[in-house]
């Protein structure tokens, strides 16, 4: 089977992290986002993954080829020369997705979405109802942020889509995970096209589009606030599926995921909802909750962190306090006793004054 992942462009909403690392490679739960998706696809029987990108990144290509080899699959890069929107890239990759010998349905995913990826179930449901396409829908707290789907509960047939409704319509939104029959490609031209506005409505009118409700967790982690929310959901799911992967200890509260190489000092209080990457050092007396700390970062003694993303190789000083979705890029140095509240700091900066109100530090 085949799958196409819409990787897109520069990942600007996840800056400053994406200034140094292409978004698909940013580690989520200690594994590149992309790898979560690819591994789940492989488990459902996918053997060819097409990455639809708008610019080529050597780092991404190299990394993905390593994983391709390891998983025994083929990874193809399909690069657009001009922005093709959310549907155009499918037309561009037509020859990879379908052909005379290949009549199987293929998966399409947004690269920002994390979930338990029920691809096998999706395939089954899709084959059962026999329509041209199936999309996943997720139940969310704030549907107007995304784009709401109105559908028939029993058959799953979609009636219509409503963008940013002004009154409550439904709390189910397009989750950015689809499966299509190859015939669907006839609806797309190789030009900038939006799948939500120029393809789905027509399929819905022709009663050729169904949806499947996601039962487990789902999140679009394209921005730091949602990245952290998604992290909490992922850890909760991990607790249910593979609790042995989570850390236990007298100084551990709730769900904490660490790489085996992490060093934690004395008198710390870690968690709930913390992810610590390879070679991270947490010194004595640190309190950290609802944070992701990337590879080789150091958190010095007696500091207090809540709802932060600490970039690779960064250092947080002693008695520092970081909170309210503070994001440090790669190699940021925060001095002792500093207070950062909702601050985004670009890579390689040294911070020696507190920033008590949300700001971006360049």
């Amino acid at each position, binding site marked *: 089977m085949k799958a196409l992942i819409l990787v897109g462009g520069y990942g600007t909403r996840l800056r400053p992290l994406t200034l140094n690392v292409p978004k698909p490679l940013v580690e989520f739960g200690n594994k590149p986002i992309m790898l979560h998706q690819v591994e789940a696809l492989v488990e459902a029987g996918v053997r060819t993954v097409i990455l639809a990108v708008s610019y080529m990144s050597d780092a991404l290509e190299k990394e993905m080829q390593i994983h391709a080899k390891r998983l025994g699959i083929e990874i193809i890069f399909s690069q657009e020369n001009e922005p093709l929107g959310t549907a155009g890239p499918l037309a561009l990759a037509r020859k990879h997705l379908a052909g005379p010998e290949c009549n199987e349905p293929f998966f399409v995913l947004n690269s920002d979405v994390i979930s338990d990826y029920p691809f096998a179930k999706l395939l089954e449901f899709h084959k059962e109802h026999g329509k041209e396409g199936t999309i996943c829908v997720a139940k969310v707290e704030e549907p107007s942020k995304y784009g709401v789907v109105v559908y028939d509960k029993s058959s799953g047939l979609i009636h219509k889509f409503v963008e940013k409704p002004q009154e409550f319509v439904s709390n189910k939104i397009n989750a950015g995970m689809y499966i299509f029959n190859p015939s669907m490609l006839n609806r797309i031209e190789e030009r900038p096209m939006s799948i939500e506005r120029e393809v789905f409505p027509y399929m819905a009118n022709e009663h050729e589009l169904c949806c499947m409700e996601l039962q487990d967790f789902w999140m679009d982690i394209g921005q730091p606030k949602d990245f952290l929310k998604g992290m909490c959901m992922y850890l909760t799911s991990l607790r249910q599926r593979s609790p042995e992967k989570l850390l236990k200890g007298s100084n551990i509260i709730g769900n904490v995921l660490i790489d085996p190489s992490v060093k934690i000092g004395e008198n710390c209080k870690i968690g709930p909802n913390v992810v610590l990457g390879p070679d991270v050092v947490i010194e*004595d*007396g640190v*309190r950290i909750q609802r944070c992701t700390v990337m590879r080789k970062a150091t958190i010095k003694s*007696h500091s207090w962190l809540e709802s932060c993303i600490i970039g690779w190789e960064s250092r947080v000083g002693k008695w520092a306090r970081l909170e309210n979705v503070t994001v440090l890029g790669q190699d940021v140095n925060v001095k002792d006793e500093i*207070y950062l509240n909702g601050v985004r700091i670009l890579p390689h900066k040294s911070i020696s004054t507190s920033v008590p109100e949300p700001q971006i530090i360049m």
Partner: protein
Amino acid sequence: MNLKAVILVGGPQKGTRFRPLSLDLPKPLFPIAGFPLVHHHIEACCRLKEVTEILLIGFFQPNDALRRFIQRERQEFGKSIIYLQEYTMLGTAGCIYHFRDVITNGSPDAFFLMFSDAFCDFPLQEMIQFKEKFMPYLIMTVEVPKEQSLHYGCAGINLTTSEVVHYTEKPDTFVSCDINAGIYLLNIDIFENIGVLFQNKHRPSLSDTSMEEVMLHVSHQNVYKPESTMGRISLESEVLPRLAGSGKLFAFRMDRFWLNIKSAGSALYANQAILELYKSSHPERLSDLPGCKGNVYIHPTAEVDDSAVLGPNVTVGAGVVIGQGARVKNSMILDGALVKAHSCILNSIIGWHCVVGEWTRVEGTPTEIDPNAPHATTDNFYLFDEQGRLRPSITILGRDVTIPAEVVIRNSIIMPSKELGRGFKNQILL
């Protein structure tokens, strides 16, 4: 030379800018660098062999704290120290005139007059030498930036003779950068000068009175002015302007640090300055614990964990407990407070018996001293600016405040006996 010292300590209606700290303890007893404010004045006076007696004049009821303090000082220094209570407001000259019999008892040649708010490295010996015999009245002055001078008494000084030729209290426009530092050395005949004024107030004769005094007389007859202001004579507004230019008032210009302790911010700055002075005057008072940086005073009964880091400019009071890995910088921790593990206290005053929870951050904004201006002193500004916004200031926790763990208290003033449930920023909590 036979001298006395008179220290004016104010009263509960005075020093309101020092609240909430002065709600529980008279301001003159508030600890600076580990010892009550006015102890530093008394100590400086007692160092002089010429000083035979120290008189404290104020409005405070002589309560336990004040009585015990005076007793301790008497025992420590072995000199006569007496507290005289004023019952009615008599003004800064009026009150010393009222007690002139006590002051002149024993026939001193002169006396130091000091305001307890005036805080510096008291140059009393130098003032004695400077005055010698030909300066009847010596006033200490300091130089401050132009803008700040308007808040004080301004002296126009003849730099060759050191005579004060002009004096205006709190002018509306700029007069001089040399201001009245609140410390005087006065011959006892000052009481004659004040006496003249006193007589004029009660029996004005139209021939030698100013327009002001006529109005006063008139209003007295028509009962415009309230009774309580009758008989008030102000040293600064009434006596000094008359003495200026008469060949009797001279200035001792002091160039070391000086400040007027009006607000908690200035108390913290005074703390810093006195701790620095301890290096030469009382080096045994500075802690040499490994976890201390810069000047730190720790009361012998305080318990400080080995891993805590204190300083610079920190004082820790009696019975204080500082937990593991705590950080205290540029702050005062008053008696009986409990600072729990990993907390961080910056630019704050933690009141008596407060509790600061684990990992909590208590932070204030220190008063800015202009480093470029000569002898700039702390601006004792009011809490709110012209737009009605609360100015960032040091954080003060009144007596008995409990702060939970893991929160931030920033630029806030918390009244006594509050138990907080969350963090606060830029607020006054009643």
